[in-house]
């Protein structure tokens, strides 16, 4: 698994180098590799398919226009963090326009945006993540979609590391209970 991860990092780096050399096909390849995950993360934050698509697109445009610096980390990490920040901003903007919390619905199963996920099982998984409160959801997304460490998440959210771990524990516990209740996952002790 470590070797596979290292290979992915190397591949991303090579594609990025080709992008900055003028190869737009390389940027497309990066997009194809990362966009499905990033769009899912953005959708689970903004709860709007078009907003999710926009923030992901803007991240790639920015990647192309502003070369990553040495301390910007990996391509994947930079993209995920950039998308996360933009998605949170978009969410806040939509909430402000709405005046009420129209985004965090209690039952996500029938959400039209989640119908974009064709696989039934995955749609259930997305639905239970979407049903989490925002503070628990963003922790889970930063950990498992943006692949940030506990320390990085704590830094991004401005909370102690212990809080990050507690929120993750609660988020995963809730997701497990709901997926077991839905019959998607098996119950156990």
């Amino acid at each position, binding site marked *: 698994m470590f070797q596979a991860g290292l290979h992915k990092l190397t591949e991303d*780096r090579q594609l990025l180098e080709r992008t900055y050399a003028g190869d*737009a096909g390389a940027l497309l390849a990066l997009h194809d590799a990362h*966009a*499905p995950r990033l769009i*899912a993360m953005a959708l689970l934050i903004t709860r709007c*398919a078009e907003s999710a698509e926009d923030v992901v697109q803007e991240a790639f445009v920015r990647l*192309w226009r502003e070369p990553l610096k040495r301390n910007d980390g990996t391509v994947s990490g930079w993209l995920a963090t950039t998308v996360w920040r933009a998605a949170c901003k978009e969410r806040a903007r939509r909430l402000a326009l709405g005046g009420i919390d129209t985004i965090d619905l209690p039952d996500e199963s029938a959400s039209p945006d989640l119908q974009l996920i064709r696989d039934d099982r*995955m749609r259930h*998984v997305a639905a239970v993540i979407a049903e989490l409160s925002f503070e628990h959801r963003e922790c889970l997304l930063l950990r498992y979609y943006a692949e940030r460490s506990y320390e990085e998440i704590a830094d991004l959210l401005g909370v102690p590391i212990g809080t990050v771990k507690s929120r993750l*524990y609660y988020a995963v516990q809730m997701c497990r209970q709901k997926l077991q209740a839905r019959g998607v996952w098996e119950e156990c002790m």
Partner: protein
Amino acid sequence: MHVTDDQLLQFEFELLDSPNLRQIESHLADCAECRARRTRLTHELAELSAVRIPVDNLPRQQRQREQSRGTSWLRAAALLFLGFTGGFAASMTYHQQPPSVRAQYLSAKALPDSLPAALGDATAWPNF
């Protein structure tokens, strides 16, 4: 006595105090059943992180495909544009934000002269 799922979750997220942590580590070392349940938890976490939305599933992409179907002049026009779902403009309109166009082809002329050079030597990129 076996480890509960709740204890496994606390173990996973480093929420146990030292005595309980050592107790569970010791039990996992000796109990195949609990190790199997820990493996299952790992698979469940992987599944929580596996939601993907292919770009082609997005409504905007589907509308664009429907609009361009059967119109050869649109396909020809697409050859002149550099873009993908984010939408890059042709060089003349680079700094604007054109509508999204699924990239089929690219034109070197559409890339702005100000595009930065390749990262160059290894010192320009972090070593992994």
